[in-house]
């Protein structure tokens, strides 16, 4: 069902005239209800689509048939009160569910008094308070919900109490890990990190004398680079971390200050006063989403998350329906992004046979040849509503532009970016035969592609375009000097016109993409990526240095959800080996890689024999391995083992397991240490799971887990709960005060200081399992082959920590599995699928992948073959031509060139040109600095 917007999207130009006059008001959900918005609104300034909408519940016209102001003031005639709900029926081959979550509503918790105390806010509200576009414009203040200039008497009184807080407290696990006050037994996975972030940013905004304290149960920072962030917060930013659950909060009605009572780790009751409290609210599945799940008949867990299998982590219980994001268990942005690509890949595999049946080809307008023609420039000056014309005298600038050399058309437009303005531009270009276009408006960084598209529609090469920024660089920053801003706008337009006159049509070279794939590493992630790409019809080669597929997963017993790993892994390996699109190269190492996206040539060495493999893309999935502990007497006694050794005992049903009366696990062995300052992510769940298995085997067995923080994120928390219920004893230790292990004939003696009793305890154990860190292979050779970076610890560094987690900055190279960061089975598979999905978007563009037009080219007549460009380029784009007429001269590889111009500036003979930013073009801008006198 499509809900009515009451504003015609095809007409709305987002000028904002309607909202200035609108009398209706309702809570601004974007700003977490911290302020009110008008009944006709746009969700947020950067919203897509940037079109207004009317809230029918508060609009006076729609509720009471009064007002109608917006219709009167709208310059574009976009308001339509008669719009109604429409039912649309869509035929689709598959569904991806990404309905997200709702932040937990803490109003029902009486002990924190969120509903009554104005200085108790949720983390979502605090996020808006910190934001420069939020209700307080990034200024951290108490009584944040008051309007900036209060009108009501009551508000005015409260506003006098407003101050910059000196002490802020964060309460963790509000609405998470809690079955007493709410029904959310799971961990929301993101709150620890966002609280740390909010505390750091709050200090950045409010200055260093702001005191930030985070009250927590376990600090859960198991993601990539998270542990370092947490340690920095503690040691560099001076954030206090207090391990305690606050019992109650009271308010001083005079000042609004808040007093908390809590029990510290030593058992003392502490009372302390804060100016503000932020409740770190958890993520919850809304009833709406539960209803949707019911309608679609897919299984959900008791907490409302979609049920998935660890080996098909984005597939719901129903074929063809996939799930992504928080609905598929609480997770943060990069994991949601991985889910997104993985779900796309799963849906794509399901529909592989009908791929490309419904997509439409873009209509291409034939390009007019303008080479050799006299420049015929059209200048378009944008008012941007009143954003530019409110400061700059746009008619004056337009008039001036018309007088500049080669300019035949100068037009002023209200919104150059609106659809009708674009259509008009096409019309004018065709009518007047324009061959260069200048737009003076906002920033080319966001709008250049749009105007270039318009040029293409008018049959002009898109590089015959120049944009100059008279908004961000002018009207917005000189709003109190309209005269000077107008002069500056004229200067900027003159400079742009001078440059545009020299613009040449540029060609984008087609990139040939070899349709085969190389996957390095035959573990879970690599095999998953290979299987998906093969099912889309691409020939895929798996390079595995061992003699068999499976990787580290061969050593695992079962997943956190209880699936038998060897059974599933065996099935996957069978699928891979029987797939005729997949070639498995075992006992094979990679000896060298040449080329670039679409055209790699790799040297493979199998049993001493080297062969070359041509491929278009590569997926690096080389995994990680278990750390060899150097402490806790590891290696000195066979009763001291690692997690994977215990898995082996379980797998083989080792009779020794039946003789154990007391078992101990030590967590963080080799992780969260100065040499390896990261959390290995998988060990807490793994040990908890194995502890439960031991208890199930023999309920009378004493099982202890010695830990620093238990990090069973998401619904893994339920295992932690189950373990405690089954009698597994959890004892926390400090990194400064690690357990001591003494090997004796009849038992292992493990001594540590118990935090609750605050005195040493000694445990007699028959078996000690060390939760050893997962360490990366730190394969510098491989990293060099593909020119991809490794971080300090040796994990691969992805393109973007949030938005590019399965790919590298190097085009055509992707990453999956524990080589990126330690991850359990389901997450390795998700990333394998995500890497496949990202690779597929590149392979699918086979016939229309082009280089940029703004790249360097060599004038061979001038080139002296000195080699400066070859040595200076960071992307290895220039090289000496090896054959033909110009042998020995420099040539630039169009695919590798990023168009930075370093070689152009360095060339001592002036032989290299940077298309689009050529020397004469930049000089022309400099020459146009002043009026020609």
């Amino acid at each position, binding site marked *: 069902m499509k809900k009515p917007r009451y504003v015609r999207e095809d007409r709305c130009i987002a000028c904002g005239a309607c909202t200035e006059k609108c009398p209706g008001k309702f809570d601004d959900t974007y700003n977490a209800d911290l302020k009110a918005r008008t009944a006709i609104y746009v969700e947020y300034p950067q919203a897509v689509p940037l079109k207004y909408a009317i809230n029918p519940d508060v609009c006076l016209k729609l509720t009471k048939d009064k007002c109608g102001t917006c219709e009167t003031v709208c310059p574009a005639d976009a308001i339509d009160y008669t719009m109604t709900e429409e039912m649309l029926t869509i035929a689709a081959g598959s569904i991806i569910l990404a309905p997200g979550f709702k932040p937990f509503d803490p109003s029902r918790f009486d002990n924190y008094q969120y509903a009554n105390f104005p200085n108790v806010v949720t983390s979502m509200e605090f996020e*808006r308070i910190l934001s420069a576009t939020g209700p307080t414009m990034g200024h951290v203040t108490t009584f944040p919900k008051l309007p900036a200039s209060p009108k009501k008497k009551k508000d005015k009184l409260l506003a006098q109490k407003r101050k910059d807080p000196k002490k802020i407290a964060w309460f963790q696990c509000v609405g998470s890990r809690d079955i007493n006050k709410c029904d959310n037994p799971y961990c929301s996975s993101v709150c620890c990190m966002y609280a*740390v972030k909010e505390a750091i940013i709050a200090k950045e905004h409010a200055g260093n004398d702001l005191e930030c304290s985070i009250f927590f149960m376990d600090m859960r920072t198991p993601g990539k680079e998270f542990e370092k962030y947490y340690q920095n917060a503690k040691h560099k930013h001076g954030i206090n971390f207090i391990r305690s659950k606050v019992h109650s909060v009271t308010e001083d009605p005079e000042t609004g200050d808040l007093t908390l009572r809590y029990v510290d780790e030593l058992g003392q009751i502490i009372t302390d006063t804060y100016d503000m409290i932020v409740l770190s609210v958890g993520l919850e599945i809304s009833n709406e989403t539960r209803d949707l799940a019911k309608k679609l008949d897919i299984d959900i867990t008791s907490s409302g998350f979609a049920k998935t299998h660890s080996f098909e982590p984005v597939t719901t219980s129903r074929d063809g329906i996939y799930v992504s994001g928080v609905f598929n268990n609480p997770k943060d942005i990069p994991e949601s*992004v991985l889910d*997104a690509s993985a779900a796309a890949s799963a849906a794509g595999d399901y529909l592989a046979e009908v791929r490309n049946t*419904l997509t439409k080809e873009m209509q291409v307008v034939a390009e007019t040849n303008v080479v050799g023609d006299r420049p015929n420039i059209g200048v378009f000056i944008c008012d941007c509503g009143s954003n530019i014309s409110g400061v700059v005298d746009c008619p004056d600038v337009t008039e001036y532009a018309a007088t500049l050399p080669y300019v035949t058309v100068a037009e002023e437009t209200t919104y150059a970016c609106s659809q009708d303005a674009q259509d008009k531009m096409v019309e004018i270009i065709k009518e007047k035969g324009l061959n260069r276009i200048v737009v003076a408006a906002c920033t080319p960084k966001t709008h250049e592609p749009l105007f270039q598209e318009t040029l293409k529609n008018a049959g002009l090469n898109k590089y015959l375009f120049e944009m100059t920024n008279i908004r961000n660089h002018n009207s917005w920053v000189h709003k109190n000097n309209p005269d000077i801003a107008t002069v500056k706008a004229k200067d900027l337009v003159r400079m742009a016109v001078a440059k545009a006159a020299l613009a040449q049509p540029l060609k984008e070279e087609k990139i040939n993409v070899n349709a085969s794939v190389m996957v390095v590493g035959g573990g879970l992630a690599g095999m998953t990526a290979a299987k998906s790409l093969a099912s889309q019809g691409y020939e895929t080669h798996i390079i595995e240095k061992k003699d068999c597929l499976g990787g580290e997963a061969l050593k695992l017993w079962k997943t956190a959800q209880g699936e038998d790993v060897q059974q599933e892994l065996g099935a996957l390996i069978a699928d891979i080996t029987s797939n005729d699109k997949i070639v498995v190269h075992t006992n094979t190492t990679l000896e060298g890689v040449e080329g670039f996206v679409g055209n790699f040539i790799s040297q493979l060495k199998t049993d001493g024999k080297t062969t070359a493999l041509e491929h278009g893309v590569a997926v690096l999935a080389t995994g990680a391995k278990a750390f060899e502990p150097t402490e806790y007497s590891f290696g000195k006694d066979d009763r001291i083992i690692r997690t994977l050794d215990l898995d082996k005992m379980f797998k083989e049903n080792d009779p020794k397991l039946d003789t154990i009366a007391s078992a101990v696990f030590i967590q963080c062995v080799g992780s969260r240490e100065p040499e390896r300052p990261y959390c290995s992510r998988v060990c807490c769940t793994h040990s908890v799971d194995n502890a439960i298995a031991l208890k199930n085997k023999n309920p009378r067995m004493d099982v202890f887990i010695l830990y620093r923080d238990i990090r069973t994120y998401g619904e893994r928390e339920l295992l932690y709960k189950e373990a405690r219920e089954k009698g597994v004893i959890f004892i926390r230790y400090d990194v400064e005060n690690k357990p001591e292990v003494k090997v004796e004939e009849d038992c292992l003696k493990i001594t540590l200081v118990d935090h609750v009793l605050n005195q040493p305890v000694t445990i007699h154990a028959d078996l000690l399992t060390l939760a050893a860190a997962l360490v990366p292979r730190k394969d510098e050779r491989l990293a060099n082959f593909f020119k991809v970076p490794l971080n300090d610890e040796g994990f691969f560094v992805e393109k973007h920590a949030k938005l590019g987690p399965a790919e590298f900055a190097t085009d055509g190279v992707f990453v999956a599995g524990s080589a990126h960061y330690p991850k359990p089975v389901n997450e390795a598979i998700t990333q394998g699928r995500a890497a496949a999905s990202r690779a597929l978007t590149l392979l699918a563009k086979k016939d229309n992948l082009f280089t940029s037009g703004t790249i360097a080219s060599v004038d061979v007549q001038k080139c002296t073959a000195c080699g400066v460009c070859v040595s200076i380029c960071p992307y290895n784009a220039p090289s000496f031509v090896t054959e033909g007429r110009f042998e020995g001269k420099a040539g630039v590889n169009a695919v590798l060139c990023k168009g930075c111009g370093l070689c152009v500036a360095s060339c001592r003979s002036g032989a290299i040109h940077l298309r689009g930013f050529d020397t004469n073009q930049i000089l022309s801008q400099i020459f146009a600095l002043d009026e020609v006198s």
Partner: protein
Amino acid sequence: MESKKTGSVVVIGGGISGMLSALDLANSGFYVYLVEKGPSIGGVMAQLDKTFPTNDCAM
């Protein structure tokens, strides 16, 4: 005979995850319907100020 599948996908939810699913599918040869209950896409991520651990702007 198996009934022929349709080469299009409905993505429900226009947050970061839904948007990226839609992009990947559209770029790999499927027709995508992105369904969002609000007036614009972007989801919760658009409300966030900064993102951890790089403190990049979420917008």
